[in-house]
């Protein structure tokens, strides 16, 4: 047997990816925050290059956009809280790994049902009565809209992303059909309905804020302290484990998605009767999608979702203000910047979850060590007397 075996010269990889075991909370927050700042910086850079925007003015505008006047502050709070509301509706669904992309449709169907009731019953009956009928109806509508895809997912494992997505378009179509049926002549828009408004506390927004705050508390309880919440977590984390303990997975899926849709329907009712006083194909303003990003950023934690929702609203309102301040005729500005921020945050998750090691000269080391090694000069190996050399070697082997 040959004593020496010559190993083939192997091409070793330059980068090696390793999953991180743990990371202190402050570090992960710092990384995420850093990436957001970089994204904003690049976004402002793009604006500066294409439209000559002054970046410092822009940052100021962003704050003015949300906090400049009292009305702005209330609108900011209301928009943030509505986005949070949709997010709360979607969290149970996503925790169960059910990709409910149909938030928009569930909101719209709730709004549609509300508006139909507002038009037909409003003025004929006292507001309170109409509201009492309207709210459960909208909730039911949203629940049904979500239940249909959920049932097929539970029974036949039908792809829920596309099913819920298609339901969005169906709901928009129904709204259009209704508008055409009711208002065939003219601008094809339902004029502002004056009856059966949501009760208004101080101004239109305060009651909504309070309602969503209550919803937030309710969702925290539901997810962390209730038996339902526990079951849905188990189903979402590990379906095998759920079956192992005898949880009825089908029932849990359907039940959770119904909750999701019901809440969206409620938000639709809030929009129809408390904010827009009408319904359009754009009701909800695409919150069904934006909320997905908001809750994903919050790692599906309801309380953190409040923060991310307000953050997204802040950026959106801010960018809109920057755009109008600089007379940029380009309505796409907020979406572009937000999309950019999304990408950066998605990308930064990688650095939180995994460690990147560089292979230099056969030895793997962390990036920071690598950079350090570029700057330190090679230290000459000192010649030691043979006994000391042996002692050093023994130390190394141990």
């Amino acid at each position: 047997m040959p004593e020496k075996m010559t190993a083939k010269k192997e091409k070793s990889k330059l980068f090696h990816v390793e999953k991180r075991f743990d990371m202190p909370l402050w570090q992960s927050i710092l990384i995420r925050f850093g990436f957001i700042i970089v994204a904003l910086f690049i976004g402002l850079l793009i604006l500066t290059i294409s439209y000559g925007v002054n970046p410092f003015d822009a940052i100021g505008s962003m704050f003015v956009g949300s906090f400049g006047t009292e009305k702005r502050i209330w609108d900011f709070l209301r928009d943030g809280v509505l986005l949070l509301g949709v997010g709360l509706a979607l969290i149970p669904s996503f925790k169960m790994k059910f990709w409910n992309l149909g938030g928009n449709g569930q909101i719209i169907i709730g709004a549609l049902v509300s508006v139909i009731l507002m038009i037909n019953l409003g003025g004929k009956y006292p507001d309170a009565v109409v509201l009492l009928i309207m709210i459960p109806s909208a909730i039911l509508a949203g629940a049904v809209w979500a239940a249909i895809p959920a049932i097929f997912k539970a029974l036949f494992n039908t792809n829920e992303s596309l099913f819920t997505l298609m339901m969005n378009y169906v709901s928009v179509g129904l709204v259009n059909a209704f508008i055409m049926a009711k208002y065939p002549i003219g601008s094809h828009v339902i004029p502002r309905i004056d009856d059966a408004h949501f009760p208004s506390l101080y101004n239109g927004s305060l009651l909504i804020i309070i309602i969503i705050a209550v919803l937030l508390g309710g969702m925290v309880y539901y997810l962390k302290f209730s038996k339902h919440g526990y079951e849905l977590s188990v189903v979402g984390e590990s379906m095998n484990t759920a079956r192992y303990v005898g949880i009825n997975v089908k029932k849990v899926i359907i039940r959770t998605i119904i909750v999701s849709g019901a809440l969206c329907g409620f938000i639709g009712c809030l929009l129809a009767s408390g904010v827009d006083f009408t319904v359009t194909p754009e009701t909800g303003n695409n919150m069904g999608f934006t909320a997905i990003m908001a809750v994903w950023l919050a790692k599906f934690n309801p309380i953190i979702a409040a923060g991310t929702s307000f953050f997204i609203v802040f950026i959106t309102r801010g960018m809109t203000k920057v755009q109008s301040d600089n007379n940029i005729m380009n309505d796409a500005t907020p979406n572009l910047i937000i999309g950019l921020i999304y990408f950066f945050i998605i990308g930064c998750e990688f650095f939180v979850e995994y460690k990147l090691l560089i292979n230099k000269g056969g030895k793997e080391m962390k990036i920071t060590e690598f950079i350090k090694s570029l700057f330190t000069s090679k230290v000459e190996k000192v010649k030691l007397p043979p006994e000391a050399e042996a002692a050093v070697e023994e130390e190394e082997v141990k």
Partner: protein
Amino acid sequence: MGNSWVLVALIDAISLAVIFLFGCIGETINEKAGNLNLGIPGVMCIGAAGGAVGALVYMKTIYQALPINIDEISFSFGNLVSYLLLMLFVIIFVAVFAGLSGLLFSFLTTSLKANQNVTGLALTTFGAGFADFIMGLIRTTENKPLFTVASKIIRFHLPYDEVAFGQTGTLLLGNGLFVYICFALAVVAFFVLNRTRIGLSIRAIGENPATADAAGINTDKYKYIATTIGCTIAGFGGFFYTMSHVGGTWENSATLQGLGWMVLALVIFTVWNPLLAIIGSIAFGFLLTLPYTIPGIGFVEMELLKIVPYVITILVLIFTSIIGKKNVLPPGSLGVNYFREER
């Protein structure tokens, strides 16, 4: 040949079908490799933007030197060169724009191991915003007519006798070069996916990446290849929408986004088969244009008819999942990222 409204609908349907088909071929390749790319609507928007930029560059440079008279197109050498250059510019720009977005998606999901659904949604948001932004930038009042001209050139078709063939002629020939490119691409895609080595590798990593990896297939490399090529092809769908279907105009990204979501449904509808995609795209195109072309249709009926394609998609979704037979099931590891160390 009479002016049957069916023919009119079909002509429009073919135009839509091309958009769908490009997108469908692209996303089929994506999904065969295991990537559920919810960013396809965004990619198509980015492709549209790319095409618009390419057309504008051409118009501002080559066209100045070699103008083509769009009303009286003659087969002169200069015109041919100009036409080919337009095609070249447009193809390169679309490929670069859409390809880069595919690369981005691939990078985020394959190398950075980000969740595919979220990345796709971000890509759609960004892509739509990007396209709106670029269009807003370049579609200045002075530039707008340039796009109309470029669009006419792109839609140039071989001449046929209007009197003798009328609408049928328009149907078969009237939509320009890209229609044929598109159909041919579908056949090529089918062939490559199902009969070549590279197609086998792609399908393998989509079904079971762990096994493919163990067999020595470089999963990362093929995911990158499949996604980038797939997104590039899909991008042409967006380009065709803006520079052909709507004749060089651009309102906002909403319509194209809507078509993009339907592409995702179409992939399932055609059970990941590019050949069936040809038929499926035409069918969807027809369904989509029907509400607008049935003579004497009432407003309400029109809106309700617009829902039909989506309902049919839902029915297809349900149907294929009930059957559950192997050849109509999605690729085994669709939507799941592969991380070797976790095996």
